[in-house]
Structures are given as structure tokens and as C-alpha cells.
């Protein structure tokens, strides 16, 4: 597995995957890979928590194994299960392969991550799982080995890089946090957001990207119920592009605002406000931003 020799090396490798990482997060990810500790990432929806794991996997050229958590998830969905229909068939056919052997074992994501020589394991939205599952995971994360009674101990030769994400719908247990490195991802600033949009949507014109990012940055200052994330900014840029727009435009903005804001009250509020003035302001800011960047 290609490693990262330094923090800047890691940032460059992720940049090639079009994931622009800031120095804080880069340091933490670098440490997670070096120390072999899981990384717990929290942040508003749409700041790129899941993307981080994806980019990390492709930057290191290893498979990404994803475990999406949900309420009621248990060992049989996360770790392993037995292939019951095949077991039943085998029973009825009177074959002599032992029923509880590797042959009938179904590998779920966690077991898969142990079996792979190298992997990035993404445990997504852990806060949705219940306390019991969290406790189980704690054990898994501390030794990277599991015991399957009928088969024996499965141990990872090379523990995977583990990224855990949470939306904080409930507080995770202190013991789990202690096992992990922690990072809170914030919304990016204008410079970074423009860079991200440019990297992700290289076919879209610079002016449009600048203007839309300025507009979104302004929106985040308002006290909205649900501030737009980077994901939504990208959608909105894409929407303008698909409609053949090269500039931010009040009427198009109003029509496509649903790409950006997902709460009716937020939509009403922005549409009821002076959208023309807001758009003009953003265009002005985008121009200033471009000039500043040009001279730098």
C-alpha cells in the first residue's frame, strides 16, 4: 500500500482525487494512518465526511469498505451471517459439508475489512446505530479481531484505516471517542469552496462558480434552519450550468433555489427577501475575490 511520507504528501494525494483538504484535517488524517487509530469525523451534513473516506481509499489505491449504520443494525448485518437457504438445501440434500463452516459464511463489511490485506473502512453515521452496537464496535476497533464460535478467531494482518462519521443525532459513548482521533469539519471558506467547486466541476466557468460560492457563503451567515453544505453548492452550480447560465441570475436563482435549500421556511425567507440585491452583492463580492486572487 502506498503510504504518505508527510502531511503535505497526503494533502497532495487527496488533491489528485479532487478532495481538497485543509491543513487541520490533513494533519489528523495523517496521524490516523500513522498511529493506526480510527478517525471520528463529525460535521454538518454535506461537508464531505463520507467523501473523505472515498478519496482516501482511491488515493491509497485500496478498496473502500462501507458499513452504513441504521437503527437495529446488529452483528449479523455488520460482521457475518450464515447462508441459511443454502444451509437448508444442504441439510435436505444430506451432504456432508459441515453446516457452520467457511463455505456457508457470509462476510459482512467488518469481516471483509479484516480479510482484506489493506482497506479503508468507512463506518457511516454511527449515531444511528444503538448503544449495543456501539459497544460491540468498541471491541472490534480495539483489537481488530473477532471470534466466530464455529470458525475461530479472525484477525487482521494489517488493520484497516477506519473512518467513522456521525451526524450527532445522539452523543456517542465516551469510551468510543477515547479510542478515536476526533475531528469536526466546518463549512469551507470562500477560497476553499471555490477551489472545491472548480476541482469537482471543471467544465463550469470560473465566473459562475465564484458568484454562486459567494452567494452561498452569504447564506451561511443567515440564521437558516438548514445551512447549505458543499454538496448542495455543487448541485446548484450544476443546475445553473445545465440551464445554460454563465452568470448568477435572480430569476433562475429563485427557480432553482430548491437545489440549495431544503426547508420550506428557508426558501420562503430567501425568496421573500430582496433576491436581486443579494445576487448583485454576490456578484460584486465574486469580482472582488477574483481580482484579489489575480493579484496575489
Amino acid at each position, binding site marked *: 500500500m502506498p503510504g504518505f511520507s508527510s502531511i503535505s504528501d497526503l494533502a497532495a494525494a487527496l488533491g489528485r482525487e479532487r478532495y481538497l483538504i485543509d491543513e487541520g484535517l490533513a494533519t489528523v488524517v495523517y496521524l490516523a494512518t500513522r*498511529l493506526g487509530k480510527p478517525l471520528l469525523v463529525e460535521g454538518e451534513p454535506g461537508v464531505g465526511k463520507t467523501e473523505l473516506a472515498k478519496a482516501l481509499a482511491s488515493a491509497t489505491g485500496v478498496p473502500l469498505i462501507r458499513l452504513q449504520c*441504521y437503527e437495529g443494525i446488529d452483528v449479523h448485518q455488520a460482521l457475518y451471517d450464515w447462508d441459511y437457504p443454502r444451509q437448508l438445501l444442504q441439510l435436505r440434500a444430506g451432504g456432508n459439508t459441515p453446516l457452520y463452516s467457511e463455505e456457508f459464511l457470509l462476510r459482512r463489511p467488518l469481516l471483509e475489512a479484516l480479510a482484506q490485506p489493506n482497506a479503508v473502512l468507512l463506518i457511516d453515521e454511527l449515531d444511528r446505530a*444503538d448503544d449495543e452496537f456501539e459497544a460491540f464496535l468498541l471491541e472490534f476497533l480495539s483489537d481488530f479481531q473477532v471470534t466466530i464460535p464455529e470458525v475461530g478467531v479472525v484477525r487482521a494482518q494489517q488493520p*484497516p484505516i477506519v473512518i467513522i462519521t456521525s451526524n450527532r443525532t*445522539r452523543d456517542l459513548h465516551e469510551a468510543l471517542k*477515547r479510542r478515536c*482521533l476526533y*475531528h469536526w469539519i466546518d463549512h469551507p471558506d470562500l477560497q476553499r469552496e471555490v477551489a472545491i467547486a472548480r476541482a469537482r466541476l471543471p467544465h463550469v466557468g470560473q465566473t459562475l462558480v465564484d458568484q454562486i460560492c459567494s452567494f452561498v457563503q452569504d447564506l451561511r451567515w443567515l440564521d437558516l434552519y438548514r445551512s447549505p453544505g458543499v454538496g448542495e453548492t455543487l448541485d446548484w452550480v450544476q443546475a445553473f450550468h445545465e440551464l445554460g447560465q454563465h452568470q448568477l441570475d435572480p430569476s433562475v436563482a429563485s427557480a432553482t433555489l430548491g437545489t440549495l435549500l431544503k426547508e420550506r421556511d428557508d426558501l420562503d425567507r430567501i425568496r421573500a427577501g430582496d433576491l436581486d440585491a443579494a445576487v448583485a452583492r454576490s456578484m460584486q463580492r465574486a469580482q472582488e475575490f477574483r481580482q484579489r486572487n489575480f493579484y496575489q
Partner: protein
Amino acid sequence: MRLGGQLPQSTPDQAVMLAAVRFGRALREHGLSASVDAEHTFIRALAEIDVRERIQMYWAGHASFVHAPDEQPIFDAIFERFWEGRPLILMEGGSEHGESDARMQGSHHGGEALPQFGGEANTKAPLDGENSRGDRDIPTAEGEDGTSNQERGVLAAWSSEEILSQRENLQYQSDELLALRLLAQEIKRQAPARRSRRAHSSPAGHRFDLRATVRSSLETDGEAFRLGFSAPTLRPRRLLFLCDVSGSMERYSRVLLASLKAAVGAARRAEAFVFATRLTRLTKSLDGRDLEQALEKARAAVPDWSGGTRIGAAFADFNSTYGRRGFARGAIVLVVSDGWDRGDPKILEEEVRRLQLQSRRLVWINPRPMSVDQQPLAIGMRAAMPYIDDFVPGHDPRAVAGLAKLIGGLASDRPARKIVPTTPLEY
């Protein structure tokens, strides 16, 4: 690349380790849960980064010690001092006078001339508590006061020293408080539950369980004589308390929360918030110490304690932060307030509506439904009323007892919810 949990090849030198441990201790002193594990992580991290780079040091420490965004200000403040080699521990005696000592000590330690690796063991300066700069620029480990209050416990609610505002001319009868205790007991006896998505094997269940069937057919030579079934497990439903603590409501809320502590503490599925004009979360599930701190904070946030509550603003606060994170989803939300709202009733109406939409059930306990101040009270309460599923007059012990029964019974079936009127209210 090394991925495993091996120890770093280069162990950081003694001075660095000492400094890291001291740093961890200082964070602990200021209320962060910096464990020995975290210190260990930090020390290992230091071996991997360039310790002369402030930004790398910062993020290494941040990743090791900080576990929630709200811990960051404390971390930042301590890190600042750590980096500059100033004394870290700011007990009553913490002072800037030890500063020069720390720097001098620093260069004595093996190899590291950086100030943050200096010793600060000798820096416990003479007590000059209140005017120490350090005490002011660091958010204190909340609640040095809390401890003393905690000893007084619930009795504090009865203290006659409390300055009574004009709203407090109404006394709570022992009946009302007794009713609260009964409520707590009842909730403890019959905790509200909900069906979880997890299943357990149960002969009485309705879901076919292939796993259990295969297992049991092993005993009968592969013939599935007995079919296995499973049923969903039950787990405690989240209870969410939003307690008004302005003016006279403080006593009532305090007694309520104190009596509920035992009842809901065990289930670990309760969250409590107190509000006057702003919302404060009682973090560690209704802990007595937290309660005092939160009341303290709420008090500090209100310029005019007796001036009434902005319930709408407090709910807006909840809806846009915790509510969005899903705290009220599927929860039984209990609002404890007299509905004395000084804000815009339109805002209150809107926010109560949102709250109802998120919750499984919205219950409003009002200990003073028939107050002497009918007029201002009526407006807030009237705005909220259409969205309240159950309105409980808190002064009536029978009503409170009925509430306990209702909450207990919400496990599987629930009585019809309030239907929101189509015509807007007039104020």
C-alpha cells in the same frame, strides 16, 4: 506505510512526554475528559509530526483531546498557554507570575528549548485569585460553585433567601410538588417504550426467523419440524424536557427535574433543557451538578430575570440546533412552562408547530393555568395550544397522575393527536 498499532520507532524524549502529560492534566482541570488514553495518543502523535510547527501541534492535540465542538474554546485557550510555555493549571492560585520560571525551566530539559516543554511544577504562585489574568481569559471548569450548591440539593429550591420577583407571588402547594414526585415514580415504574428495529427470537413473534429454524432443524436431522419466530425488542423511548426556569417557574422546574433524575437516569434516554430567553442543555442526563450550572448559565443569560420568557425564541433555538440533529424525533416532548411569553406570539406558534411535527407527542405542563395574570399568560398559551397534544394543569394532582399513565401507555398505541386548525389565530 505503517497502519497497525505498533509503537512509534522513535519515542519522544522525556521532556516532551512530561509536557504532554501536563497538558492533558491541565485540560482535565478545565473540564475536558482528557483520559490517559488521550495523553498516550497525543504522545504518539508528537513522534509523527514536526513539533516545531504550531499548526501541527495544535491539530495533533485537538484530535487527541477534543471530543465535541463545544470543547474547542477551552482547548484553544489552554493550547495557547501550552504553546507559549505559560503555566497551564489555573486553580485559585494560578497566576502569571510563574511565567518566567517556566521558561527558564524549559531550557533545562533535555534537548528541547521550546517553551512548551518546560516544567511548570514550580509555578504555583502565591494566591492572588481574583485579579489573576489567567482566571479571566480561560473558561473555567464550570461549577466550582456547583459543588456547594449541589450539597444543598433540591432544598435550594425552597431557600427563602431567593429574591422573589413579582411573578413569584404565587406559592406552590405541597399538592403540586407531591404530584410531581408521583409522576416520577410512575415513569420509573412504567417507562415509556417503543418498538425497536432489532428482533429477538420469540415463539410468540410474527416474523419468520430462518436462523432459529435452521438451528433447531439440526437437532432433527435436517427436518424443520419447528419454525422459529422473532419479535421486535422494546427499548426506552426518549423523553425530552424543555423546562422554563424564569421567575417562578424555576422552583417548579427544579423540583420536577430533581424528582425525575432518578426515574429517567437509569434509562439513559432522557434529555433536558432549561430556558428563560435562551436555551441551555443539561448535559450529563439530569445530573444534579449540571442542573445547578445550567440554572446559573440561564440566569446569567437573562438581563431581566423577572421580565418574562421568550419561549418562542428558546424553541427556535432548540429547533434549529438540537431539533435538526434529531433530538425530538420520536420523543415524548414535555414542555414545562406557564406560557408567560413576552416575545412575538407568531414566533411561538410557528416554533411550537415545528416541535410538534418532530415529536411523537407534545405535552405541556402548566403549573399555573389559572394565574392572577390572566392577560399576558393567555397570549403565549393560546398561540401554543392548538399544537399541544396533551395539556396538563400542573396544579392538579389528578391531571399529573393521568399524565404518567398516558406516557406509560404511549409504547404501542397513542391517542389521536391534535389537529391543527386551518384558520389562523388572531391575537
